[in-house]
């Protein structure tokens, strides 16, 4: 019956093409939505995910990575002195203003880190050395920031919060969910730049747990010791940041809605065309029943059509998605294509196409071979 299904599809070329287009539309859109969503989420927590360490100490009720408040710097020593902690480091994340070359200003996210250890700083450099921000008015600009800040090279001067900083490096792979450009400078420089943080405060304290120690156990110890702060494992802080953007901004709902609409449209198109094909071939299916075919023999034909549409539509959509990654990147949109996403979308495609076949299955069940005797 697989053969019959294929022949029907090849015979009804226009209908098959339309069905395939429907699947490609739905699946490509789903790939794009999931890929962009994951890209956005990875972007939102990229600094957390790429910063060594196991524990993040933040201000109380900190919403996410981008919107934390200053906490006293002495907390760093308290964390460092806790059993199970191998090392600790201060990191400042705050907001500032940069003067544009052509006039006007742009909001930037400033990351202040320890240039000796690099903790909290850029993990991949396109040019320059991440230690170069030490002892001076220096900054590292991420290459993704060039879109908003204009082309910037090592040696250029940029005015951040009314202070001239010399660019000593170009980093790679650092972005903010907020799309604001990210600038790295030394921890002390960040304290000097931002008045309301000042010399006695930090924004995050990052801790590394000793080998063999349980992260949760150390977190519990810290919670007993430290007041007025929240303490997270790296993974949970990363998740919290992602969830914030997903839920609080409605981004998650929007993407989910689009995926559901794609599913609905895809099911509708596939279901409609397979149903039309079934109705058109109802007498032939009735003939098969009259000749002794079971309903299951005919279901095979219907489901084969659905599966073939699903497979071909999926593969073409995957190809389109992979080919379009460069286009998305050129537009500054991070889109992620991962194996587990591919598998998930494949399952989604099969569910969509197979469920759309059920309308036809109901029709088949009701076929009365007696219709063959009526003209």
């Amino acid at each position, binding site marked *: 019956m697989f*053969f*019959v299904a294929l*022949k*029907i599809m*090849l*015979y*009804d070329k226009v209908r098959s093409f339309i069905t395939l287009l429907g699947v490609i539309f739905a699946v490509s859109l789903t790939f794009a939505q999931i890929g962009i969503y994951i890209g956005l989420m990875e972007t939102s927590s990229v600094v957390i995910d790429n910063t060594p360490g196991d524990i993040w100490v933040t201000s109380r009720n900190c919403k996410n990575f981008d919107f934390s408040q200053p906490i006293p710097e002495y907390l760093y020593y308290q964390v460092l002195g806790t059993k199970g902690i191998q090392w600790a480091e201060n990191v400042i994340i705050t907001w500032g203003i940069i003067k544009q070359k052509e006039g006007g200003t742009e909001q930037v996210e400033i990351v202040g880190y320890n240039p000796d250890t690099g903790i909290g700083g850029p993990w991949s450099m396109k040019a320059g050395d991440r230690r170069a921000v030490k002892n001076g008015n220096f900054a590292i600009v991420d290459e993704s920031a060039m879109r908003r800040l204009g082309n910037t090279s090592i040696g250029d001067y940029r005015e951040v919060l009314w202070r001239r900083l010399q660019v000593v490096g170009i980093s790679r792979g650092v972005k903010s969910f907020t799309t604001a450009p990210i600038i790295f400078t030394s921890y002390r420089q960040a304290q000097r730049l931002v008045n309301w943080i000042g010399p006695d405060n930090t924004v995050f304290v990052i801790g590394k747990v000793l080998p063999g120690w349980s992260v949760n156990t150390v977190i519990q110890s810290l919670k007993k010791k430290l007041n007025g702060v929240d303490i997270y494992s790296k993974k949970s802080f990363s998740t919290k940041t992602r969830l914030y953007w997903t839920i609080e901004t409605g981004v998650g709902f929007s993407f989910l809605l689009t995926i559901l609409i794609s599913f609905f449209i895809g099911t509708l198109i596939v279901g409609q065309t397979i149903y039309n094909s079934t109705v058109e*071939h109802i*007498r*032939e299916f*009735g*003939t*098969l*029943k*009259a*000749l*002794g*075919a*079971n309903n299951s*023999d005919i279901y095979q034909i219907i489901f084969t059509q659905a599966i073939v549409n699903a497979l071909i539509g999926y593969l073409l959509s995957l190809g389109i998605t992979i080919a379009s990654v460069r286009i998305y990147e050129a537009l500054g949109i991070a889109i992620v294509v991962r194996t587990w996403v591919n598998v998930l979308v494949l399952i989604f495609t099969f569910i969509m196409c197979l469920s759309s076949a059920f309308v036809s299955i109901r029709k088949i069940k009701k076929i*009365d*071979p*007696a219709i*063959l*005797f*009526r*003209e």
Partner: protein
Amino acid sequence: MDNGIALTNLTKVYAEGRIRVKAVSSVDLQIEEGEVVGLFGPSGSGKTTLLSVIGCILRPTEGSVRIYGTEVSSLDETQLPQIRKKYFSFIFQGFNLFPSLTAYENVAIVLKLKGIKGAQADKRAREMLTSVGLSDRMQFLPRDLSGGQKQRVSIARALAADSPIILADEPTANLDQANGRRVMEMLETFAVRQKKCVVVATHDSRLEDIFRRILTMEDGRIIKDRRKSL
């Protein structure tokens, strides 16, 4: 009777709401293996209904239907496909060929349903199509065949399945007179040669001379049952 069709007091009533139509009324009939029977009568006389009941497509309202000794009228709906697969082939007025399958494939699919596969199915399909004069049309789609050729594919399909009973409902209605006659003569020759039990419902009285036994229906009853002397 264990070799053929036996109907006893067969009645079929169509009921829709308060309206009841007795399409077949108290029919007693026996058709033996090797008999080629023409079932004649005007439109609405009950020919198609009788054929449908014999072919286990419709259930009788009253009476009994025995097919090669098996009482089928009391079987469960789910058992009827097996009965049809084992005993029946059909030829329809509208041919009912798959438009996307070639003549060969339309015959082969029936063989597959009967459990005949591979080289055996291939040989049988080719033999049948050759025997109905379509050896050079095997790879043609139905849209590229004439009405007579399509009906011959239908006959090849019915014969290839090697079912003991062939039921044909108005097989010549969509054919011109010459083609219709040719197709009926072909069916009759094969049926007799292969000892099939064949019942052909038709209202075309010009074909009467082809059949060895003629049943005439009127208002759901068989009013005449003539056998031609050989």
